[in-house]
């Protein structure tokens, strides 16, 4: 901390006065941008939630109405129930995977850990329909169960479906955090307990579990809020009595002035902020990373033969469940008719043909929107990173805070905010109202993904020793030439990784875009999938589009992973100068 302070105060002395203009102008422009497209729209949504629509005075009446309406009460309870249950189910999926792979010598640990991440590369709403075909009342599993055992399990009935799809999609957050927490426990922590007489379950309960708890809770809080905010999955599963779908339906159905949409938005934001804050607190206040030099994790035990068979069985079942949306999606995309039968009747490339003949605009739009948003994200992200880390501009940290705050704003809320704020603004040259202009989709995606790009850029710049820049300046390079010749080339890897992450996640974003798309011709992939999936006849094509989306995200994830790894090898900066 003090090192950063002294570095920045040095930068302050040397750069603030002669070079104020450049950095300050950029900083102010970014601040205006973030105010206009993040802070004000959200603030307005919250304001309207407390506004009496007729008299224009502040009131709590809207909240009273909300909680007096049975539908909203039910939605609130359902959202809460689905989120909590998703955390439970995600934990049931993640816990064995994390525990077995970190605690035992187990062939295939690396495979399991990477297979565990696969759900993240598929947007949950894409798998939702495939899941109903596999696990629904007349899906593959229940048809077989009914045929051979004479009963069905209501996996996908109502809220169950949302819980199953969401927990399969989001359990990696718990897996990642829990595995890291387990790996961070020093072996001597466990050995000391054994030495003092503890073993087995008691050892787990008293030492391992409490030490891994903060990591687990941080992951669980993330899962909770992601599920709480999600719009696409419940919509596609036709579950409307939840908060996010209700907000969407009120705004698109009843109208932009209906206060209920805003009340729901306020609740979503409040829960998001609370969960993120809680997750932050878990990680910070009780950082139990206990590994010491040469330590390196809990000691791994050899499994006996019987335990090994059991472990493989458990893992196989979990992975089969986790990968089922992908299987289902592939079957759906390549299948002909799939109804009341365990598998499709036949296989065909027809759906891909359909997609490529009539729906290329979705792909084109996605590349355009997500690509532009990601370019803007890395430009703004690296500018903010540079201003925060390398200059002494007053209030520079607020740029970081503002941009990062986008994490706590659900897509639905941002969408509603844009509709409210920009519906009255007419664009010049006959482009119509700003709220229905396709450019606003790019801006929404940009704001939503900025935190990801910003983290990448920050990390890239932080690794860059100040001495490298000072050396350039010492040899006669001006500030701007130093940035161009030294800073940007060395940050390139981090910037690229940020671009790819932003692009891949923006490409499958649905919750904000669904509110802002005004014409099918201007819709991106995710919206196209949503449209196709509405009718049983369109499912095949929807799944084909879904596979394209998965491929885009998978490629993106893989690329950013590779870039980050390569950069780590390339730009190892010696500790001197720190």
């Amino acid at each position, binding site marked *: 901390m003090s090192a950063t302070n002294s570095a920045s105060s040095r930068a302050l002395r040397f750069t603030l006065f002669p070079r104020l203009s450049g950095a300050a102008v950029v900083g102010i422009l970014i601040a205006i941008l973030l105010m206009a497209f993040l802070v004000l729209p959200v603030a307005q949504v919250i304001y309207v939630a407390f506004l009496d629509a007729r008299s224009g005075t502040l009131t709590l009446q809207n909240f009273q109405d909300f909680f007096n309406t049975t539908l909203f009460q039910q939605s609130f309870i359902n959202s809460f129930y689905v989120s909590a249950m998703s955390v439970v189910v995600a934990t049931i999926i993640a816990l064995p995977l994390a525990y077995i792979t970190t605690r035992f010598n187990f062939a295939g640990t690396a495979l399991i850990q990477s297979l565990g991440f696969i759900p993240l590369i598929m947007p949950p709403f894409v798998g939702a329909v495939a899941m109903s075909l596999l696990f629904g009342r007349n899906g593959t599993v229940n048809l077989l169960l009914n045929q051979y055992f004479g009963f069905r399990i209501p996996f996908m009935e109502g809220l169950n479906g949302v819980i199953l799809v969401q927990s399969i999609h989001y359990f990696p957050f718990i897996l990642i955090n829990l595995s890291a927490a387990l790996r961070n426990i*020093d072996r001597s922590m466990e050995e000391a307990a054994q*030495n*003092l007489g503890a*073993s087995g379950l008691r050892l787990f309960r008293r030492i391992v579990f409490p030490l891994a708890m903060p990591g687990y809770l941080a992951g669980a809080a993330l899962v909770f809020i992601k599920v709480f905010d999600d719009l696409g999955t419940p919509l596609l599963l036709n579950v409307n009595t939840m908060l996010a779908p209700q907000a969407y339906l009120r705004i698109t159905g009843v109208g932009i002035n209906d206060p209920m949409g805003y009340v729901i938005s306020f609740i979503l934001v409040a829960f998001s902020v609370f969960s993120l804050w809680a997750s932050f607190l878990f990680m910070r206040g*009780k950082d139990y990373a206990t590994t*010491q030099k040469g330590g390196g994790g809990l000691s791994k035990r050899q499994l006996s033969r019987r335990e090994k068979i059991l472990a493989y069985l458990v893992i196989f079942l979990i992975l089969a469940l986790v990968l089922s949306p992908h299987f289902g999606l592939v079957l759906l995309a390549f299948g002909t008719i799939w109804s009341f039968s365990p598998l499709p009747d036949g296989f065909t490339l027809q759906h891909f043909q359909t997609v490529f003949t009539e729906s290329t605009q979705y792909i084109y739009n996605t590349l355009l929107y997500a690509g532009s948003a990601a370019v803007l994200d890395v430009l703004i992200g690296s500018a903010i990173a540079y201003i925060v880390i390398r200059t002494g501009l007053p209030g520079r940290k607020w740029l970081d805070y503002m941009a990062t705050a986008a994490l706590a704003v659900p897509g639905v809320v941002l969408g509603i905010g844009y509709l409210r704020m920009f519906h009255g603004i007419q664009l010049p040259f006959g482009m119509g109202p700003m709220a229905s202009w396709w450019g606003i989709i790019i801006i929404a995606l940009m704001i939503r993904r900025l935190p990801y790009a910003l983290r990448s850029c920050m990390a890239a710049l932080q690794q860059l020793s100040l001495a490298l820049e000072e050396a350039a300046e010492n040899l006669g390079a001006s500030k701007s030439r130093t940035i161009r010749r030294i800073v940007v080339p060395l940050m390139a890897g981090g910037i690229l990784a940020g671009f790819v992450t932003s692009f891949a996640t923006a490409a499958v974003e649905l919750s904000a875009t669904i509110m802002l798309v005004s014409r099918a011709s201007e819709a991106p992939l995710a919206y196209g999938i949503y449209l196709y999936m509405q009718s049983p006849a369109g499912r095949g094509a929807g799944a084909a589009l879904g596979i394209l989306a998965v491929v885009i995200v998978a490629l993106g994830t893989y690329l950013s992973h590779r870039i980050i790894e390569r950069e780590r090898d390339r730009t190892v900066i010696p500790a001197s100068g720190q």
Partner: protein
Amino acid sequence: MTQTAYRENNMKRETAGIRIEDLYLSFGRTKVLAGIDMEIEPGEFFAFLGPSGSGKSTLLRAIAGFGPRPKGRILIGDREVVDLPPWKRNVGMVFQSYALWPHMSVRDNVAFGLQERRLPKREIDTKVEAALELVGLLDLAERMPSQLSGGQQQRVALARTIAIEPQVLLLDEPLSNLDAALRVQMRRELLSLQRKLQLTTIFVTHDQEEANTTADRMAVLDGGVIQQVGPPQELYDHPANAFVAGFLGTANILDGQLQEDAFLTKGGHRLPITRALPEAKRIVLRPQNIALTDQPAEGLIRGRIRHREFLGSQIRYLVETADGTIIVDRLHEPDGLDYPAGSDVSLRVDSRNAPLLP
């Protein structure tokens, strides 16, 4: 009987000796321990001394039950423990990193082992307080480990281990994370605590000074093999081999052969000896047992000073001779004799008690 004395008495327990027979251990294909045999007496303060990679920590961990299962026998008292899990061995171990659990207070850390033993709460409280009082930390009982200094953490780790009244106490480089001054102080405290409790203690260290000052006896290990066992002074005076001679203090080891009542070095010098070891091939000359003079004489080793180091209490000379470089330490006195580098000198060796090696 005072309260404290009563508590100390209360903490004593049947202490036990340790016998290790023909112990082999490997990590995969790497042999780490190769045929360890030794016996540690009840109540003894014993040190495992050796360079890193010598197997000393592995041996200690094997006694506590950590690491791969060794081949051979380990007896604590007359109980065979090789097949017992760590939690059934009743050996107390203090970890190099202390391994205090960060989510438990000092009191909870110390109480842990007693709770595992399902003692009644009253008894646990008494024993926790006795252990904390013994290490002088009773007033910090409610603190969390992260609020303690390194020395205090070390004491908590010790209290936590002693509280379970183990049959033997194992210390894995317990002082290595402390600064130099605190290390000397903790070393003395450890020793006096051990004397008070009369608890069989094994202390692993790579620092010969730590071992010399605390241990009743020690085992010098290298390459997974015990090189020699004995009281520190005996090992210094009578090293069994070149490794022990060189590891304990500084040693000049000269090659040569026995000739009647003298050792004839390869360089042609004749060093009189009083003891004879048949088949002796090498002689160990300690730097402080060699005197320097600038007057050449019959029977002295001639040489030239290549390098001179001022060490404070001593001056160390590296002297080039026909037998290679010989290190000579002379006490430093103000206005005492001193020779600059490059001087031609003669060495007078007190070789009568010098150890001989095969």
